């Protein structure tokens, strides 16, 4: 189900796209790093690549000479995590230098009159014994354990503790800085530029996102205890009134950076918990759970669909923190998984479900860390809600629970078989190598890819981090002529199960390669495929199992030389498709 906003509807896609692009171009982040700084980074990287390329070209020439000398071809294999790795993205972030500027810039002291007003930033970083959220830590509070380097920052909300409804217009990103001994040691980070203007009723709250502080000295933030201060530049005003530029502030909160003890699981249940201990909350939000047809595959992130249904007659706003999935046997939790989501507020009309279904997934491992054993389980889904209008002020959350549902986990964790239910269906309209397309008959081609792959296996430890598969493939001239021409340096390949494509097409930026190959001789190209499931909107790996690898390649022949040595200029395109081998994916 989808929701449509009222009023004008976007029926002109180009106009909408242009508007989105214009917003992005006008944002602060688009051009956040000064051009000079940005240019320095690009020049440095480009120059380094140029130098490496020049050096590599020299090496390639030397290797070619050596290969001719021994008269043989070595088939190399490069499988798994190492091959085709992409360098991590770099972001141009200005390093915060110590400064004598005003708070919250690096090096500045915290103002003596720092105080939060009625509209203030509050955090769940510290809850008192009654579960009340605090706008600041108090003497004796334990620090909130965090790891700033991993962006695990404190959750923040704008709380309206006043008596009238206000609008809070802002980017939705609050600046968080870290203070030690009264001085800022990690200053404001980058902030994107979306603008929101939510209405906050008295006692209500809306979430905002904390930005990651930039260490003032450019080094990773040292472990230790800090105070965190948060500032949200906002336009605050009574509904319908004229807003005023205001800094909504909160803190200080005590943070323990790099603490070995993390905030801990916020899941409602732990391993071995009795399900009877779960408090049942049924109104006003129901969870409609759609179960898989037949046995499910452990770890399948799309096996379950959860829809949030407002059972009341009036619209309801709720903040959602996470969706938890539990497998229960013998009345006890034996496996669980959680999809942690950033707190956000959704409005659900009365008597309706929220537009977007959620896919919390099934656990892949049990409480002991072993693969979930095949068999029957009771399934529980728990979603934590907070009503921003009422509940958050008390700092407590409510839980909507759905279950028990009977579910069967299929017994294919060994990877020998793959549940067809977890793979895309055969699509008769799709053209190879599109998702779900049938593989073509292996027609004889005068210029084909020969089967040379013996890929032992690919270990995909984290299904959300699929991998590349690369290996060497051989292209063989099956004609009686010597052929001269060119092709791509890389053979794209897809994974196939039961005759249809199940992985996405790899996009390989390859150079052209010239060849001159005698009859029955071959030349080597790199074969590239991915383990990315093509039937999912999210990026995730294919389930464990054995898959066929099918490659496809266009070659362009420019000249033919027959046995007598006479040459003919031609312009031929040969499209080859071939089953190259098999690969086993293990999780």
């Amino acid at each position, binding site marked *: 189900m989808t929701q449509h906003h009222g009023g004008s509807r976007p*029926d002109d896609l180009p106009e909408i796209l242009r508007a989105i692009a214009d917003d992005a171009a006008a944002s602060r982040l688009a051009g956040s790093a000064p051009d000079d700084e940005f240019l320095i980074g690009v020049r440095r990287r480009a120059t380094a690549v140029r130098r490496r390329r020049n050096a590599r070209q020299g090496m390639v020439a030397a290797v070619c000479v050596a290969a001719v000398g021994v008269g043989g071809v070595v088939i190399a294999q490069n499988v798994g995590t190492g091959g085709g790795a992409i360098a991590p993205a770099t972001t141009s972030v200005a390093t915060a230098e110590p400064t004598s500027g005003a708070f919250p810039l690096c090096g500045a002291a915290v103002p003596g009159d720092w105080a939060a007003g009625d509209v203030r930033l509050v955090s769940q970083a510290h809850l008192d014994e009654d579960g009340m959220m605090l706008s600041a830590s108090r003497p004796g509070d334990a620090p909130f354990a965090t790891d700033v380097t991993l962006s695990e920052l404190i959750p923040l909300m704008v709380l309206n503790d006043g008596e009238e409804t206000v609008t809070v217009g802002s980017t939705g990103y609050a600046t968080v800085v870290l203070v030690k001994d009264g001085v800022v040691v990690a200053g404001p980070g980058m902030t994107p530029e979306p603008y929101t203007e939510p209405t906050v009723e008295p006692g209500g709250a809306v979430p905002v996102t904390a930005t990651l502080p930039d260490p003032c000295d450019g080094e990773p933030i040292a472990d230790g205890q800090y105070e965190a201060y948060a500032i949200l530049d906002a336009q605050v005003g009574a509904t319908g009134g004229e807003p005023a530029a205001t800094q909504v502030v909160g803190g200080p909160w005590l943070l323990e950076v790099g603490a070995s003890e993390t905030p801990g699981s916020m899941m409602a249940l732990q391993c071995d918990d009795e399900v009877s201990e779960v408090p049942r909350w049924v109104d006003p939000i129901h969870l409609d759970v759609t179960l898989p047809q037949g046995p499910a595959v452990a770890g399948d992130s799309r096996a379950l669909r959860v829809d949030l249904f407002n059972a009341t007659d009036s619209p309801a706003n709720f903040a959602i923190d996470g*969706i938890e999935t539990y497998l229960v046997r013998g009345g006890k939790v034996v496996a669980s998984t959680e999809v942690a989501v950033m707190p956000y507020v959704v409005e659900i009309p009365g008597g309706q479900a929220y537009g977007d279904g959620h896919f919390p997934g099934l656990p892949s491992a049990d409480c002991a860390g072993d693969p979930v054993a095949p068999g029957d389980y009771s399934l529980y889904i728990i979603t934590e809600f907070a009503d921003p209008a009422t509940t958050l002020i008390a700092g407590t959350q409510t839980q909507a629970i759905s279950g028990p549902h009977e579910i069967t986990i299929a017994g294919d964790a060994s990877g020998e078989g793959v549940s067809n239910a977890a793979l895309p269906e055969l699509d008769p309209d799709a053209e190879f190598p599109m998702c779900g397309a049938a593989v073509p008959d292996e027609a004889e081609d005068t210029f084909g890819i020969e089967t040379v792959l013996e890929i032992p296996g690919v270990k995909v430890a984290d299904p959300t981090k699929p991998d590349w598969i690369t290996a060497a493939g051989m292209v063989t001239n099956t004609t009686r002529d010597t052929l001269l021409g060119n092709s791509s340096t890389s053979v794209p390949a897809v994974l196939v199960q039961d005759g249809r494509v199940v992985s996405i097409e790899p996009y390989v930026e390859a150079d052209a390669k010239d060849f001159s190959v005698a009859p029955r001789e071959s030349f080597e190209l790199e074969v590239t495929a991915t383990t990315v499931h093509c039937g999912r909107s999210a990026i995730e790996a294919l389930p464990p199992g054995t898959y066929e690898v099918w490659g496809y390649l266009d070659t362009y022949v420019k000249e033919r030389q027959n046995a007598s040595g006479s040459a003919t200029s031609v312009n031929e395109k040969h499209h080859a498709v071939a089953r190259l081998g098999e690969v086993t994916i293990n999780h």
Partner: protein
Amino acid sequence: MTGWEQVLDDLVRTRRRALTAYAYLLCQDLREAEDLVQDALVAVFSRGRRLENVMAGESYVRKAILNTYLDGFRRRNRWAAVRHLVATAPEQPVSDVATTDHVAARVDAQRALSILAPRERACVILRFYDDLTIPQIAEHLSLSTGTVKRYLHDAVSRLEAVLGPLPAAHLEDLDVLMTGGSR
């Protein structure tokens, strides 16, 4: 300053925001868009290719942005796994002429774009933002025209599921070159 450095300098100073906007349409994330632009600039200007001017450079960089985006699923792995669970941040144009409907339409469109597969989204952007014809898109992405039509058909269907009817985006109209200025 060498020739390529001069073109790079001019390109960044005059077209960086436009390039970032283009990348944003593809990846829907401003930070990632900045990364995409930087990676694309590095890819283009590290090849020793002779680029006469900013216009030629921008053309290469736009293509590199597209390629990098389509190739760069790794960097999005975690976010992609959870993004369907996260509400799209309501964004408003900085322009003060924005209306509630205007914003709602845009948020809908962004949400709709986010559900498209990378190659589908690339086809949509090339078609409806870059105003390319089907054959031009096919050449850009090294696909057959039939495959491009299929991607566009699927993408438009999925967009309509969120946005409602998009009469100007249907296949029968896809071969008509749409007009538009340089962005």
